[in-house]
Structures are given as structure tokens and as C-alpha cells.
């Protein structure tokens, strides 16, 4: 159970496939148009429940509760080998500069 007032993330289908814009590539048209947004949970709920949150701008938004104790998991990605090669070339070419 996720407590009331916890910072959570919700998910909502804004437009299902049928109601999306007409001018879309076929693969885009085949999936719904979705939204994720964070805010404070208004009532104690379980993951997967349809809930209401209050967002940072004090809007009420509703959707499926997908995460509590939201944190960031993005990274700088894998090491790019070609950049290391370029760095080595530049360093060797600049060795004799005063």
C-alpha cells in the first residue's frame, strides 16, 4: 500500500489508437498516445490502481499508479570508443605545441 501524500508517478492513455491524429506513420498509429506525470498521491492506494495526484503546479491529474518513491535511473550510456580514439589523436598532435 502506498501512503497518501507520497510522491508518485502515474500513467494515463491520453488518446487511444482510434482517436489519435489521422496523419501518423502506421507504427505510431498502432499504439496509444500516453502520458506519465508525477505528483502527491491523494489517497492511500496500491500500484496498478487508478488514482488522483496533485502535481507541482497544483493540478489534479488521474491515472494508473505505476511508481512510488520515484527516482531517476537514466545514465550517460556506454563508453563511446571512437571518442577515445579521437582524444588520443588530438593529444598526440598537440604534444609539441608551446
Amino acid at each position, binding site marked *: 500500500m502506498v501512503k497518501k501524500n507520497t510522491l508518485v508517478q502515474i500513467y494515463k492513455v*491520453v*488518446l487511444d489508437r482510434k*482517436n*489519435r*491524429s489521422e*496523419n*501518423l506513420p502506421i507504427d*505510431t498509429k498502432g*499504439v*496509444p*498516445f*500516453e*502520458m*506519465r*506525470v*508525477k*505528483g502527491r498521491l491523494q489517497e492511500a492506494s496500491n500500484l496498478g490502481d487508478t488514482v488522483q495526484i496533485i*502535481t*507541482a*503546479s*497544483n*493540478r489534479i491529474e488521474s491515472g494508473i499508479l505505476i511508481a512510488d518513491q520515484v527516482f*531517476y535511473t*537514466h*545514465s*550517460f*550510456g556506454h563508453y563511446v570508443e571512437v571518442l577515445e580514439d579521437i582524444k588520443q589523436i*588530438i593529444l598526440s*598532435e*598537440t604534444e609539441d*605545441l*608551446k
Partner: protein
Amino acid sequence: MSNSYQSVMARKAEIMKEALKLDYDLYEDEGIGFNYEKMMEDSGFTLEDVKKIQLANNVGKTPLIELPRLSMYARKFSKDGYGARIFLKDEAANISGSFKARRAAMSIYQAKKLGFKGVVAATSGNYGAAVAALAARAGLKCIIVQECYDSNGIGQPEIIEKARACEAYGAEVIQLSVGPELFYEFLKILEETKYFNASLYSPYGVMGIETLGYEIATEMMEKEKNIQIC
């Protein structure tokens, strides 16, 4: 009032007019012409005004740094007597860390002047962080609408990083999956909140960038006669 895709898009002109207090139709010329100069003139800000507003917000007058080692490196490969002096304008020194703060400063100033309680911008990059930072400084609410996720719910790391920055500045970030319907969601939010449209492409967003060229030109003319800006 229906919020279907077609209905909201049909209200586009009126929502945009209300959220910017500007009527683009006034500047339409016959055919495909558009009177850009007149629109900018009517905005009521001079370059001097823009400079003052930006400086009051820790925006602009960024350091111009000479990169002598890079200049020497370039000369190693150029004909004798050729090879430029290379400088860098450090726009990361602006509040929020990019030149987009120049644009955001003017949008936020206009929103505040017109009495709006908040601003909305559709952006997945540095402009979002700039609007969020300057809105926080001005005491305005801020909503950033991003195109972020693919259909498997995988977000682009650089866009999530911008969301993190916007949220740290106190903004609400609406993260959408890919598609042109971002504009539909943006219109719905403008209509619901009655906030200002802090678009990159309003006259205010556009005029904010003009001080950058002015600064580079005046600072460089003190150092060199022949300048190439890129």
C-alpha cells in the same frame, strides 16, 4: 465542451490567442507572406529593454573566453600566416546553464507583466530548464510538456535529464509518448490552467536571443577586425 482531438485542435486559434494575448492574424500578408518586422516592433521591447531584463535575471553578459591552444592547433594545419584566433562564448554561465535562458527571460517577463499566474512550454530540451528556472525566480507556476517515451515506456536519457532539472526547479513535467499530439496536450493544458504560452517561437522567445549576437559582435570588435561567428 469536448476534449476530443478534433475539438481541441479546432479551438487552437482561440486558445493560442488567449494564452499569448497576441493575434498572429494581424501580421499575415497576402498569400504566404508574414510581416515579422511589424510583429516584433509591436511587442514593445527595444534591444536595450531586453538587455536590462536579462541582466536583472542573471542572464547574458556571459564570458567570452579565448582558446589559445585550440588556435595553435588549428594553425598547425593551416598555411603560414593563416589560422584564426578561436574564442568561445560561455553560454553555460547563464542561469539554468544554456543560452535558452535568454529566450525564457523575455517570455517570463511578459507573462508576469500581463498578470498570468503560470507558464506552459512544450519542450524536451534546455528551453524547458530555462523556463522552469526563470518561472521559479519570478514566482510563477510552470508546466513543461515533453515528448519523452517510446511505446515501450523507454524514455530518452537526455530528455529525462531535462525533466529532472525542470522538476528540481519546481516545475510540473508532463512526459508524453512520441507523436504530434503533444500539441493537443499542450493546448488542453493551456485551456485548463489559463497560463501563459511561453513558446520558444513567440516574439518574446525570439527577441531574447538577439542580445547574444550583439554581445559577441561588440566584445569581438574590441579584439579583432575580421570576425567569423559559427
